[in-house]
């Protein structure tokens, strides 16, 4: 597809991409580099004490609390993203249909997601907490202490997160479903493919890019969860996420060096996991145009 006039394609590509790169570099790169430099320095509370090299990192990685919060963060991420995917896919398939009242249904499905997180977190705390015990009284559970025991506290936080962000996944998957041409299904139907076969062999593969984007962003968001556990449990009963730990060392008991080291470790971890998704995604859409159709 050679152009005959104007910029060459490569130059054009660079022009198109540069505003984004410039904006992101200016605003985001500076604080990231600053934080990284901070992480190599020693601090006693807010007072600088010179160079620390990798001491902060060693300390962070040998802190038992780091590993405990990592464990919770992983459990939270895997469970909630899986649940959100399944429920979100269901919502998307539903929203994709033509039926009466579909507009209202689609808007209704988005409601959980548009509520500000801090309010949603307070609401779920209020509902789950044994006093006043809203969920307990609705389901006749007496004094069941959801937020006050290990395991169930994690469940409550995951539940609130799934409720809140399944619509986000649904939205992305719905848009993905919309780009699948109808005639592909027609010909499959004509060929006698059953509903489930059509779903598995046509819908899912064509939806793969949208699925990967949704999973990518939900995963990195879940790995950084802060508001929900902080408001619902304060991190008690093994619900302390990595972000809560980081927040503690930047704000509550500030140690800029250690806090930045924790942040960088978190960052590298999340980036690593994100890269896996990117590679999977990249193969699909970026390397040339040989998508199967």
């Amino acid at each position: 597809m050679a152009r005959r006039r104007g910029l060459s394609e490569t130059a054009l590509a660079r022009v198109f991409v540069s505003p984004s790169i410039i904006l992101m570099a200016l605003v985001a790169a500076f604080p990231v580099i600053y934080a990284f430099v901070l992480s190599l320095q020693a601090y006693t509370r807010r007072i600088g004490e010179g160079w620390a090299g990798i001491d902060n990192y060693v300390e962070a990685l040998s802190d038992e609390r780091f590993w405990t919060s990592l464990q919770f963060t992983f459990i939270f991420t895997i469970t909630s993203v899986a649940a959100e995917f399944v429920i979100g896919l269901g919502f998307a398939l539903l929203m994709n249909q033509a039926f009466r009242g579909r507009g209202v249904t689609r808007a209704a499905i988005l409601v959980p997601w548009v509520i500000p997180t801090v309010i949603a977190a307070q609401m779920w705390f209020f509902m789950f907490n044994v006093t006043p015990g809203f969920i307990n009284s609705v389901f006749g559970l007496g004094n069941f202490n959801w937020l006050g025991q290990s395991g169930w506290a994690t469940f409550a936080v995951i539940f609130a997160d799934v409720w809140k962000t399944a619509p986000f996944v649904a939205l992305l998957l719905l848009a993905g479903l919309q780009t699948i041409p109808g005639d592909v299904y027609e010909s499959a139907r004509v060929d006698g493919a059953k509903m489930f076969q059509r779903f598995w062999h046509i819908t899912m593969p064509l939806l793969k890019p949208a699925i990967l984007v949704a999973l990518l962003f939900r995963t990195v968001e879940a790995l950084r969860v802060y508001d929900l556990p902080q408001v619902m449990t304060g991190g008690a009963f093994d619900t302390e996420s990595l972000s809560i730990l980081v927040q503690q060392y930047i704000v509550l008991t500030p140690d800029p060096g250690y806090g930045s080291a924790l942040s960088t470790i978190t960052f590298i971890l999340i980036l690593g996991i994100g890269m896996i998704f990117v590679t999977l995604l990249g193969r699909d859409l970026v390397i040339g145009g040989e998508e199967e159709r």
Partner: protein
Amino acid sequence: MSITTKRGGDKQGIVESRTTAQIWGKSALLGVILLWCLFPFFWLIMTSLKIGDRALNSPDLFQGPFGLQNYEAVFAQDFHLNLRNSLAIAGTTTILCVVIGSIAAYALARLPLKRKILLLSAVLAVSLFPPVALVPPLYELWRSLGLLNTWEGLYIPYTSFTLPLTIFILTTFFAAIPKDLEEAARVDGATPFKAFYRVIFPLAAPGVFAAAIIIFVQAWNEFLLASTFAPRDPEIAQTVPVAIAAFTGAVPFQRPIGTITAACVVVTIPMIIVALVFQKRIVAGLTAGSVKG
């Protein structure tokens, strides 16, 4: 025929089966989904209409007394100014992100660019660093640039941090459009720009609108940067989540759940309207040829 599970069947389009069991089954499923999504919102509405300590803290949803005092209190605190601020900031973020992001996405999806995966990863990396660690250096930078307490001081970093998600979504959708359509347009003599406008953009509309909603809602609900850069002064730049978090009760310690839920309801209703409008766009019929309507 059995009822579809949550993963749904593959009922693309207009053909609906008519067995009674199916209709009942679908209605039940719909009912469950609506209940799941909307019941907590209903709780928010009920709580916001309650006045008096006991009502607000009782597990009984229908315990009175009721009244509109909470809404009066919310607006007495210049909440409409917060709404204005949030609208402007989130709106500008959305426009900037879509414009800048779509040309970058087009380049990534279509034009030859070396090391795309590396670029995508770098793009992703920008949004992954724990924001809480980025706040201190950004605050200092913003302070020296005089960007504190301004709209641009918020929508610039919002755009910057939301560009990765935008670019990913849009790249996915652009790449999913068959190249032959573009070919056809160019054969007809269109410049790459025109090809982009008249062919790609409309076909990618579901993705674009999905991205737009996501950007808008994320910018709207963002709390950390907003509470750091514009913590007070609704007349200037204080946004909605920050204002809600700053609500106090009548006496110290008291948690103003009434005004918080009232503010949440006030905020969610326009969002639902925006979602209703946008969801039409996501699933809007695209009449051009082979793409599904």
